[in-house]
């Protein structure tokens, strides 16, 4: 009897076990390295961390990153700043103007930028639904996200012309999003920068100038007005910054790119303490012939004699085989006890140059001269001799070339917006065609979204 009872009990237990499919058992917790999206926007600290990562992504990849795959190098090669004799065909295509639409550097730029735009949009949407973050913090974060969105689209429109303006995170919408016209793009960029300027506070959210505040949006607006040839507003916006006591002119050019520089408006934090810039790590070399991109001898020769920048911001390497030059604005190729240099994206000198150019167009000869001389004198050069709008514009262009070289593609964008690319590049780039003012839209992207057809002319 006992055996039967046992048997039955065991069978029952087993049957119960076998037949149970337990919802509980297969429920797993959210992994410890992740947070659900709504929770992120329930506190300023986590929302801040989400925002900070967009900056980190901008530093690591895409347009303004300091590696060979950022604009400083790629567009330096594309214009007349740099030369390259290394083995990367991808970079060579920029140097030689033989870019094909499948060029992976172009795809990387495109992908990284839209991924950063997505992250900005996700923050904007998260903040919209958030109830727990104080209005003050919310507005500043919103301002930063709007600013970054405009900042990133600015580079897209300049490089590719017509591109999609992405302002939501809805992938169903975004996977077939059409291009906007260049005019629409510029309008979006301007409006959003204006909105950002209102939302952002005067204070940086961090002790250092490594995230956007009102002045950063202001500086960007000055640049955008310059590109749009809205001279009055460009001058106005540049003045606002120049007159802002927070930003102090650095008189010694050797100190301009240090992290403490008082002329810095916005710089990128390198991440870990003790790390310096990618720019130094990628551009600086100490022997020749280099396998890295180098400054073109013609560009180095274009400095006026006595220009301090040629000695301080350019490094010359010579040996029995030849002489080579590398950018040397950022010098610290290795880590240091505490970081010494940050990659600077906006600095006061650019604002002077913007105002000089705007004033020259507006006929303010003396004003333009004074702004230009501010730059020239610091470089150890005498006052400019230019005294007509035309000669002044030429002098500004020269000065921009010497001052802003290898900084996020300024030279190329200047050539493009002043329609001088043809004249400057035709003689020195055998592969030059005038359709090359725009880069090709990445091949892979065209295959994934037919709305982006047709490809830019010439590719």
């Amino acid at each position, binding site marked *: 009897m006992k*055996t039967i009872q046992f*048997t039955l*009990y065991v069978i029952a*237990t*087993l049957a*119960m*076990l*076998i*037949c*149970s*499919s*337990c919802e*509980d*058992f*297969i*429920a797993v917790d959210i*992994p*410890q*390295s*992740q*947070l*659900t999206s709504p929770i*992120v926007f329930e506190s300023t600290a986590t929302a801040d*961390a*989400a925002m*900070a*990562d*967009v*900056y980190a*992504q901008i*530093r690591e990849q895409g347009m303004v990153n300091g590696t060979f795959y950022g604009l400083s190098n790629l567009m330096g090669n594309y214009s007349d700043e740099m030369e390259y*004799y290394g*083995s990367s*065909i991808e970079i060579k*295509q920029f140097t030689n103007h033989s870019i*094909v639409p499948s060029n992976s550097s172009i795809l990387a730029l*495109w992908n990284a930028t*839209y*991924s950063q*735009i*997505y992250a900005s949009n996700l923050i904007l949407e998260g903040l919209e639904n958030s109830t727990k973050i104080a209005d003050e913090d919310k507005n500043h974060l919103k301002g930063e996200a709007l600013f970054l969105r405009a900042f990133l689209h600015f580079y897209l429109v300049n490089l590719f012309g017509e591109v999609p303006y*992405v302002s939501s*995170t809805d*992938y169903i919408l*975004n*996977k077939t999003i059409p291009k906007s016209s260049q005019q629409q793009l510029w309008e979006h960029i301007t409006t959003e920068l204006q909105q950002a300027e209102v939302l952002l506070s005067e204070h940086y959210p*961090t002790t*250092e100038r*490594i995230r956007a505040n009102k002045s950063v949006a202001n500086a960007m607006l000055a640049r955008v007005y310059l590109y749009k040839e809205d001279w009055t507003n460009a001058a106005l916006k540049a003045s606002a910054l120049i007159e802002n006591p927070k930003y102090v002119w650095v008189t010694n050019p050797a100190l301009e790119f240090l992290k403490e520089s008082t002329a810095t408006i916005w710089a990128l934090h390198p991440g*870990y303490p*003790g790390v310096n810039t990618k720019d130094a790590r990628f551009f600086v070399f*100490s*022997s*020749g012939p280099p396998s890295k991109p180098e400054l073109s001898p013609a560009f180095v020769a274009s400095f006026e004699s006595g220009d301090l920048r040629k000695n301080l911001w350019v490094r010359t390497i010579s040996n029995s085989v030849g002489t080579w030059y590398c950018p040397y604005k950022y010098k610290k190729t*290795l*880590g240091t006890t505490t970081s010494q240099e940050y990659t600077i994206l906006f600095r006061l000198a650019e604002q002077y140059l913007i105002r000089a150019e705007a004033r020259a167009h507006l006929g303010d000869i003396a004003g333009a001269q004074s702004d230009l001389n501010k730059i020239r004198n610091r470089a150890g050069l005498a006052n400019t001799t230019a005294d007509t709008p035309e000669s002044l514009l030429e002098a500004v262009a020269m000065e921009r070339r010497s001052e802003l070289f290898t900084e996020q593609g300024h030279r190329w964008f200047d050539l493009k917006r002043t329609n001088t690319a043809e004249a400057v590049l035709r003689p020195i780039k055998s*592969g030059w065609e005038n359709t090359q003012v725009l880069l090709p839209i990445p091949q892979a*992207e065209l*295959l*994934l979204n037919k709305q982006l057809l047709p490809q830019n002319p010439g590719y």
Partner: protein
Amino acid sequence: MKNYSFYKAASALCYLIFIAFILSSSPALANKPLRPLLSERQQNQISGTITDGKAPLPGVTIAIKNRINYAVLSDFDGKYTLLAKANDTLVVSYIGYKTAIIPINYRKNIHIQLQEDITSLQEVRINAGYYSVNEKERTGSIVRITAKDIEKQPVNNPLAAMQGRMAGVNIVQNTGLPGGGFSIQIRGINSIRSEGNEPLYIVDGVPFASQSLADPTIAASAITGLANPLNNLNPADIESIEVLKDADATAIYGSRGANGVVLITTKKGRSGETRFSLDAFSSMGKISRSLDLMNTKQYLKMRAEAFANDGITSYPANAYDINGTWDPNRDVDWTKLLLGGTALVNNIQLAVSGGKDNTQYLVSGTYRRETTVFPGDSHYDKGAVHSSLNHSSSDQRFRIQFSTNYTSDSNSLPGRDLTYRVYSLAPNAPELYNDQGKLNWEGGTFNNPLAVLEGQYHTANTNLLANSLLSYQLVPGLQLKTSMGYNETTLSQTITSPLSIYNPFDTSTHQASLYIANGKGTSWILEPQMNYTKKFHRLDLDLLLGSTFQNQETTRLAQMGSGFTSDALINNMKAASTIAMINHEVVEFRYNAAFSRLNLKWDEKYILNLTGRRDGSSRFGDGNRFANFGAIGAAWIFSKESFFQNRQSLLSFGKIRSSYGISGSDQIGDYQYLDTYQVSPYLYNTVSGLAPSRLYNPDFGWETNKKLELGLELGFLQDQFFLSAAWFKNRSSNQLIGVPLPATTGFPSIQSNFDATVENTGLEVELRSAHLKKKNFSWTTSLNLTVPKNRLVAFPNLEASTYANSLVLGKSLSIRKVFHYTGIDPQTGAYTFKDYNDDGQITFEADRQLIADTSPKFYGGMGNQISFGNWNFDSHFQFVKQLGRNYLYTASLAGTFVNQAKEMLSHFPQDGSTAIAQQYSTGENSTLVEAYYNFRDSNAAFSDASFIRLKSVSLSYKIPNWSKKGSATVYVQGQNLLTFTHFRGPDPENQSFSSLPPLRQFSVGFQLGF
């Protein structure tokens, strides 16, 4: 029952096991005989020797008729002892021999001589995972190899031993480096996602993770990124490998059976006297094939011509090969220098086994050391300990099986495969070492390929797999079982990049760095089961019910330090000036299922097999977590019908079988249904940011795979000649894929079910013929052939989808759309292509209209076993008919500072517009550059990659009369000895220009038993 907590279940289970123990040891219950004895007489000890007429046969099963679950095995000398009653009958069976039925008839010593029999191969029990089936009665499609086949090959990975031996199973070795990876496809590609096609591996009942624990952030750049976790198993410890293919066999594995199931069973102990065995071999390996490259004279001529073509008269400063910096008369065979070494393998295994009636054990230890063909002293070491213990209570009602496998390997290979450098280095590149014996950088002009050897790359793996199976027979026919398994895998990687690996002439930007990564995976599984068998007159019923609880946790941690003050401190993370945390993740996966099988057999002729499983997985969001899978299989052994039996027929065996069912796949990764932010790998302002994890889609569910199979098995002339053929049609739908998205969506893809259908059909034929069967001589040939066809059957709106570029309806998944190469333009000297839309230009979207299909057309193998006295000879050929990517696919632009295949000497204009290479260029001519890119993506880069390979050869000799108690065998083995192919490149199997091809190995060894 829905909310029945697991923890309650676990305690109930423990209770169950406890009860089982009590039952087995309680004298009142356990010793109670199952049925009354015919007489009260004592059991007698019966002993004897079993031979095949010439030599003793070890491992023969001796059972007693009508006594369930009682059997002993003959020992090494063919001796056996057992307890039986004087009027019992012995049933003596052994693979390859006719089963003998011998009444004891009051004898004490019974010597038995077995008769060889081919028919009995049909009697083999085949492991089907949760149950086993008699080969002749199986309804599903299962192929197997056994220790016999594995032992003949000096391989490190069990997958290598399976190559070419199983119909429907296609295995490719990716690299010739020890510890490298394999890719396996069972009946073709089912999932559009390339990583969704892994089979399920089960080792002794424990699921074995097929993903490497290597940190994904660096795995891609290092050799061991290709590491295959099955390297953690020791082939010599494996008794058999079964591959389950059709629905009948795989549906009981439910959601994880879609891509087939590989069951690995390790060796068990046998009763008999304590027996030691020693097996040792050494092997030498060399690369078997390489790319034929240009010599210096040819290379420099090409370079000079390229510069001339591009109008460059003075060579640039960094064209060291041709501008006089490097010696133009130097001519180095880099293949010989860097890949020409001999890889040595030393392998030794010692095993002890034995046991008595109720308890058997086996313990074995293996040590293996492999070196590489590269210069330097890189090596791979592996140690394995395997143990197995079986015990049964004296009444045979309670049984326990316990086995553990522990392996540890240590891999200190170079961080990079040197193969790529070999195929690209200029043949006049300078010496590797300078006069002082240091690495030569030739004044900074030479990026020394051996620099990578300065860095240390070290990977260590350990793997512990423990499994126990408890069973208790409650009443005759009803058995309770619990399988419990635990698997723990750890991996640690250390990579050092000291300053000395960098060109010292350009030190400014380099930092010494140390990278440390650790991974750990633990998983446990619990499977309580109930098995009921009953015979009702002519009907045999076999019912299995069971459930599965599985939990798997994976942890990965990776950090990197840089900025060491001295290379000497590079192994200490504390000496780094910057330490970055690269990865830290903990992933948990839980899985729960209930399964059942009902097998009905009528008159031993008609067999019906029903299997089903309900699965739940934590990989899916609420509402999508559970799904049902199942299959029906049937077989008819028509040769048992009276009209066959009455005739003197050629046909000795005939069976038709068929199955249909559904299995699934959940290979999508964990947590994919969550809407989350995750900790970013990057810091900003010294703190970690939060990055969006993915595009949010909570609604995806299981991928389903419907499988249909028809099979025919025929044996002729007492099964001397045996044919089995199967036709299958599998359809995979509801595809679980990351649908590629344009970058404007912020992510490259979104996880989703996609309403596309992939179909795999195929014909598999296996043939075995025992041509000769004489007393001292036998010769058997076996052949397998698979003709697969993979087809994308449905894909709604393909043209508008993101796959328009890579897939075509009605074609296989392994296609690539390519340009149609039409020869060299006599004007520009550039490659030309067919302009399909006549728009005057060659564009990626419009003109890649040709299809190159790299899926195999057919594959298989042929083996021959010949034994003559004490000699045994075994050879196995593998063959594949396929199209593959040739060297042109990865070749650099001819004329640049990179060496080329010798074929590229045929060039324009010398060899006209049908030359292989277009006009040479240094990369300055954009027309040529563009044409070069298109050429790589054209049909010219694809050519025949079929091959026939003598995969393994083994010759062994058993030394007669070695000693009274022991035996000795010496053997020589060869692996990949011969390859016949027209492939344009190094190796038609891995088709790689950056990974070492599989090596040709030759080994010598011996086996001692005492």
